[in-house]
């Protein structure tokens, strides 16, 4: 500590010498370090944000970014009247809300069950297996899904047929596709999602359980009255974060699982942005859709955060 004090007096002397910008002289190396990632973020994150203005311009590639005409909210009016847009909004909400219901609750249930298991070895082995799908890319998951679920030669259908049933077009018919999409999402994320809940559960004070046992509480009573309330804050935080993504959804996931036979539910906002923007070259329209999605997403996060705070939780913002 003596050394530290000595250095402080040194610094104080320095500070007095050239009062206001001495920190620049002292820490110029730190500023140089941080300047490099800052430059990266500005070029690759903030430059594109400036590109958002083309949602308010009639962007023509020949005229360029500056030469294109301002049209105000014309583009937005234009997209709101497109039937594809209404469909994309519906699908995005449908897929993500259903995904939220199933993929969000599964890890909680699984974590509660894993916590009931005593054997450490049993837990470790099963967790290792449950985490595995999280490490596979969506392309690989999509490929595995077709190997498993396709109507002609998928192994699941082979089994169904062997047992005397009829083959089901899991991925080749709209409603079935939706169910498969959700099931694959649960499959991919359920094990991984348990990590945070298990961590939260492990920090619960054991005395609470002991006291409950003395009071004669059974297993389910303890889960209901101690474990679940104790991880409520974690659940709420993760829920807020997921709510912000309700307008988003993974492009990669849909793109890997879609096919020509199932267009009813696959037209979502990210897919629409890709089709309008990158495939058809209508940059203004696609940017406007993307902007609309981001703004709604932020509103959702803030709203959910406010509600959580009203309910007495910490929130994330």
């Amino acid at each position, binding site marked *: 500590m003596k*050394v*530290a004090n000595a250095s402080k007096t040194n610094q104080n002397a320095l500070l007095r010498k050239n009062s206001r910008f001495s920190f620049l002289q002292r*820490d110029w190396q*730190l500023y140089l*370090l*941080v300047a*490099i*990632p*800052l430059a990266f*973020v500005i070029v*690759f*994150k903030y430059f594109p*944000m*400036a*590109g958002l203005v083309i949602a308010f311009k009639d962007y023509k590639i020949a005229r360029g970014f500056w030469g294109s005409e301002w049209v105000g909210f014309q583009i937005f009016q234009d997209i709101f009247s497109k039937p594809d847009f209404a469909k994309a909004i519906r699908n995005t909400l449908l897929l993500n809300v259903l995904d939220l219901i199933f993929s969000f609750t599964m890890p909680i249930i*699984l974590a509660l*069950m894993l*916590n*009931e298991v*005593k054997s450490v070895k*049993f*837990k470790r082995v099963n*967790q290792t*297996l449950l*985490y*595995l*799908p999280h490490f*596979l*890319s969506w*392309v*690989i998951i999509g*490929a*595995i899904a077709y190997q*498993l679920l396709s109507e002609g030669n998928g192994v699941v259908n*082979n*089994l169904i*047929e062997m047992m005397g049933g009829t083959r089901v077009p899991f991925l080749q018919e709209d409603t079935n596709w939706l169910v498969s999409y959700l099931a694959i999402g649960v499959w991919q994320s359920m094990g991984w999602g348990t990590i*945070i809940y298990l*961590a939260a559960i492990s920090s*619960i004070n054991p005395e609470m359980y002991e006291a409950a046992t003395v009071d004669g509480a059974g*297993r389910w009573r303890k889960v209901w009255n*101690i474990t679940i309330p104790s991880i409520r804050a974690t659940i709420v*935080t993760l829920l807020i*974060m997921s709510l*912000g993504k309700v307008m988003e959804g993974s492009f*990669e996931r849909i793109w*890997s699982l879609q096919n020509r036979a199932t267009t009813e539910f696959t037209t979502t906002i*990210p897919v629409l*942005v890709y089709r309008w*923007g*990158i495939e058809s070259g209508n*940059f203004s329209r*696609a*940017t406007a859709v*993307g902007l609309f*999605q*981001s703004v709604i997403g*932020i509103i959702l*996060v803030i709203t959910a955060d406010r509600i959580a705070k009203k309910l007495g939780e910490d929130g*994330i913002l």
Partner: protein
Amino acid sequence: MSASTGNPAAPSKGRFDIWDILIKFIIIVASLVCLLPFLHVVSKSMSADSYVIANQVFLWPKGFTLEAYSKIFADASILRSLYISVIVTVMFTVLGMILTIFAAYPLSRAQFKGSRVITFIFLFTMYFSGGIIPDYMNINNLGLMDTIWSLVLPLSFSAFNLLILKTSLTSSIPVSLEESARIDGAGHFRILWSIVIPLSKPIIATLSLFYAVGRWNAYQDALFYIKHATDLRPLQLKLYYLVIQATESFQLEATTVTLSNPEVLKASVVVFATLPILCVYPFVQKYFVQGTMLGAVKE
């Protein structure tokens, strides 16, 4: 970390409980559901055509053959994609870590003025972004289209990883340690290089894994930015065209016996593309669990 110790909720030892059995049963079923699909694809990839066509392969290869794999290794375009993926992943991870460390160290120092503003500039990107099209136009304007840099540069900074590293550095590198080094005449560069980085090896390794696996698995940006340069397709994108879109076939001349059923080939390509992840998985899994928990604390 993967299994929490101390389990007060469980009943006392030796008592038979139907719920214990039921819970274990459900967990085992869930684990098998995670494992079996992959096992099936592996079996298919090693089976003879005729059995696959007859729908007889389930969890064990029938008519064992590695013919499909020899085809993959004879296909220059797949090996080329593997090579691109490896190069891109390594460059991306190194660059990502450099950027993250360069941002996290100054921001973790209490005396660093302006850290609030700079932190905000970094973290804002977590909640708001230009989106697909402005990103695309930016890459286009920078002339990075159809270059390897379009896969390395844009995503190489992660605000989430910055948060984790900053939290870790704030708690693990005390100011007194830094100050005593300064008394000895060390500048910040030297402190970073000889003190901070060696002391933070575990967290640096964890974040490197985050970067590497994330890059390895992504294909959206490659789908957008690598349009014409087929030589630069990373493995995941190659896999996408080959297996999911089925718009591409293997570049082989038909000198060897052709496989009449593309299913076996598809299965073996899937396994081939998964192998790198499966090889490192047992080693990286526990770091991921730790890193995810660290991230959760910060959130």
